[in-house]
């Protein structure tokens, strides 16, 4: 199995800034949400992280270690520097938030620790709206992500299974969001990707909603109330593998090919705060 993450180039895809055209009713949205680009409104899964303690393991799994336990080269195939744990120092639910915290500490041969969780085998869905409200960490070499993998990864392997990166971000570029799909023939450096720069704001000073709306033959990427990209089968130079269930991943990496290593100015610990993760499907 290969890791889903590789260094990505930014192939220009059809950039549809259609937020105004796609404003729909904000049914079911809470008052703190500004996201209005909704076509999928029937809630199928949510974790609001309202019970202090460890994560709800009826929905989530821990991915532990440096990737070698998952059959990957150390560093999760990306030369990442962290060792993932399930310790409360790295992952906990507190104050209505999921805290995933990257620390600089010597642990199991690694210089950093952090956490990564998935809903594999627990929450998997084909099509729908997948979104999370997150305040991101910051600093050189900090690499948080909210993403999806095809549920058939164990059968067909990556990238055949498909990967949808709803949110990736480099701590050294605090206003820039990256949304990407990887599939057969367009993975890693050839992935189909687009950046979005938050105007006069940054992702580490407040919460933002990162989401996709995914249906047959399209994936719309949005942040808050801005739809900043749509990817369709015409945009990918390979097979469209997004007509099957996917599961969710949340993680906070340190270093790695995407961001480069942290430097002396990187402040540790760094925490990704997740207010909620929600999944919707179309109203029947």
């Amino acid at each position, binding site marked *: 199995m290969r890791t889903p993450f590789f260094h990505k180039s930014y192939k220009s895809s059809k950039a549809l800034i259609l937020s105004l055209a796609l404003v729909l009713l904000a049914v079911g949205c809470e008052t703190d949400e500004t996201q209005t680009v909704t076509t999928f409104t029937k809630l199928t899964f949510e974790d609001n992280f309202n019970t202090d303690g460890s994560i709800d393991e009826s929905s989530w799994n821990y991915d532990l270690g440096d990737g070698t336990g998952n059959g990957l080269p150390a560093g999760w195939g990306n030369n990442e520097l962290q060792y993932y744990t399930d310790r409360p120092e790295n992952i906990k639910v507190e104050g209505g938030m999921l805290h995933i915290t990257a620390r600089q500490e010597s642990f199991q041969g690694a210089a950093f620790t952090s956490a990564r969780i998935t809903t594999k085998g627990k929450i998997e869905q084909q099509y729908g709206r997948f979104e999370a409200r997150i305040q991101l960490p*910051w*600093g*050189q070499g900090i690499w948080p992500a909210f993403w999806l993998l095809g549920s058939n990864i164990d059968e067909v392997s990556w990238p055949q299974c498909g990967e949808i990166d709803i949110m990736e971000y*480099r*701590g*050294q*570029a*605090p*206003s820039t969001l990256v949304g990407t799909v990887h599939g057969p023939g367009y993975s890693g450096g050839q992935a189909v990707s687009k950046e979005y720069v938050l*105007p*006069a*704001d*940054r992702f*580490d*000073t407040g919460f933002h909603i990162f989401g996709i709306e995914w249906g047959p033959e399209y994936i719309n990427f949005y942040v808050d109330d801005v739809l900043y990209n749509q990817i369709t089968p015409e945009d990918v130079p390979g097979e469209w593998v997004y007509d099957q269930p996917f599961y969710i991943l949340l993680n906070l990496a340190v270093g790695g090919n995407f961001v480069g290593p942290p430097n002396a*100015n990187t*402040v540790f610990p760094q925490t990704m705060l997740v207010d909620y993760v929600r999944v919707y499907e179309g109203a029947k």
Partner: protein
Amino acid sequence: MQKNKINKLIIAFSLGLTFLFSNCKRDISDDAIPATFPKNGTVYIDGFSPGLEYLPFGDSYFAAFSVDEETKYAGTSAMRFDVPNVGDPNGAYAGAIFPDYGGRDLSGFDALTFWAKATKKGTINEIGFGQDFRENKYLVTLNNLELTTNWRQYTIAIPDPAKLTREFGLFWYAEGPENDEGYTFWVDELKFEKLGTVAQPRPAIFDGVDGSITTFAGVVTPILGLTQTFNLGDGSDQTIRVAPAYFEFTSSNPSVATVDEQGVITAVSSGEAVITATLGGVDAKGSVKVTVTGNFVFAPTPTQDPADVISIFSDAYTNEPVDYYNGYWAPFQTTQGQNDINIGGDNIIGYTQLNFVGIQFLVDVPTINASSMTHFHVDIQPREEIQPGDFLTVRVVDVGPDNTFGTGDDTAGEITIGPPNLVNGQWYSLDVAFSDLAGLASRSNLAQIVFVSDATISSIYVDNIYFYDDGGGTGPMGPTTAAPTPTQSAANVISVFSDAYTNINSNLNPDWGQATQVSEVSIAGNNTLRYGGLNYQGLELDGSVDVSGMEFLHIDYWTANSSTLNAYLISTGPIETAKALTVPTSGWESVDIPLGDFSPVDLTDLIQFKFDGNGDIYLDNIYFYKTSGGGDVPTTAAPTPAQNAANVISMFSNAYTNVGVDTWRTDWSVAALEDIQIQGNDTKKYTALDFVGVETTGGNLINASSMTHFRVDIWTPNMTTFRIKLVDFGADGSFGGGDDTEHELVFDNPAQGQWVSYDIPLSDFTGLASTSHLAQLIFSGLPAGGGTLYVDNVYYYQ
């Protein structure tokens, strides 16, 4: 070709003048609406924004700034700055402020931004805002801003925009030549903006270090290293130096050290306090633990006539110019510090991490011709415990007639001092004759004073460095008249040092390791004790002396240069108590110190005197005395009992838990009773005494059958006979009944005017058949009805 146009060039020729501020400050009454100021963030886009002025620094190159319509980033013009070459007679650097004295409300912005380029790679030394030639209250400085030869945009963050509701200083800079060469840079589109990407504030004080300082009450210490660090929108960190007014400072213990809004720490009293700060609600990294160690001891004030002095460093004289007070001689010198300590207005040199350090007067200033001087003086205070083997060598260097180093005519002389002269926290005054500085062949071209400790002593204060002419005398001046002649009757005196009395035997100069030079000098024919260069000095009595019958210690003293002087009495233990003497004196000073002031020193067992402090002290007429008859009032408490409480039945004593007593004056008594305190010690005072009954009847009956002695301390100014009677009420425990027994002891001529302790075996009360039911204690004496009697420590013991 450049086409330059001077636009609105307003040069403040009165630079450095502080504008009066009182006109700008008014209290806001309840119904007043605070004034608001323009929220205009533009400074220079294509010309001066409304209200903007240009004021160059007074010593800068005034023509540095101009408006350039050729080279610009956008629009029609840019600000152009021409940095002069090194040493330009018209001003060797470029620097100016751009204020708007109407004030701007910048609270809605988070950064100052501008585009800039330069004719070559330049690094602007200082650039920022908040400088207004007034308070510079919200000064912000970015150091070392690197410019390129291309237009690039730069950001200088606002530490806390909420503070800037009326800011005058919109832009300022100061820049010198690069590698001695002038160059030109341009600034355009200069404005305050709300970027929204200035984030992750990380304020710091003391550059983020948790430090500690040890200081003295009254000393002020500024908080340095005030910075704010942001992560900017491009992901880079920016650290700016910011004014104290952006911070809120806190002291953990304001009774020890306070901190004001300017970040100035003031030490208040002994103890520890930690100073911390916040900026915009964010805790600042860094702190300082302030340890206040009481009051600072100043160096003795020099007494040489200024006409006879060439001073290098002293607040008492006009000092000669020097190249430096610390040459930071590379590569081996570790010594830090120079003339940068000011304590209560007294300038002091503080050296730390001392291995060696030099003060020089040679290169930029004349050498010193001290050929008419005879001595070198310096005051030194070690700031650490001095160990055996520690030393400090003081070297005086002459560079010879050529006034340069190393041409064969250089000479130097030195003197080394150490323990016991050097004591932690105490000033040592070094006065050395040039004739004793072997090797110093000439003092016509003196150029350096060097201190060398080889790191044996790492921290010292230095003060009063000067050369002087002692006029052939014996050093600092002394009194010219004798101390006043004592008038106390010899019968009432125990004298230690006085020509007026027969002195008890004592050793005037025991070797306690002190630095003080002790001598007896004759002043106007009067033998006088002199302590030269006092650090501390003992005086040992010949055995134990009982001065409890005395009331006062008298001392005559004279000093022109001491800043602190304490006198101690010491009893076995040692138990010692200091009494501070006021110094310096104007002529002879006489003090009469009540002996009670030396409590808890045992006045019956006095063994030593001690003096400590500094300076040169003259002492005379050191004696104990009592007023005639010993006085009417005891000034000291009765001696503290020594018996173990388990072996005592106490009726009256602060030393024990007392049993119940019906009364200390029965109604059949002939005496008046007053409960008083002497030095905090409860005492019974009987006056108009013929006899007084003290009763312990009924439940208060005292069973002293296991006790062996009766004890009472009395003090009387006038009684010639003193009697004690004990009465036992017998087995029936009540008066009468045929089983009462009693006995009275008579003491003739008790010592007057001093405490007298009676420890009487109960067996002496021979008429007392039993001590199991003691019910009465009766004091009586002569003159009948006229006695005054102080009573304390009434108890039985075994």
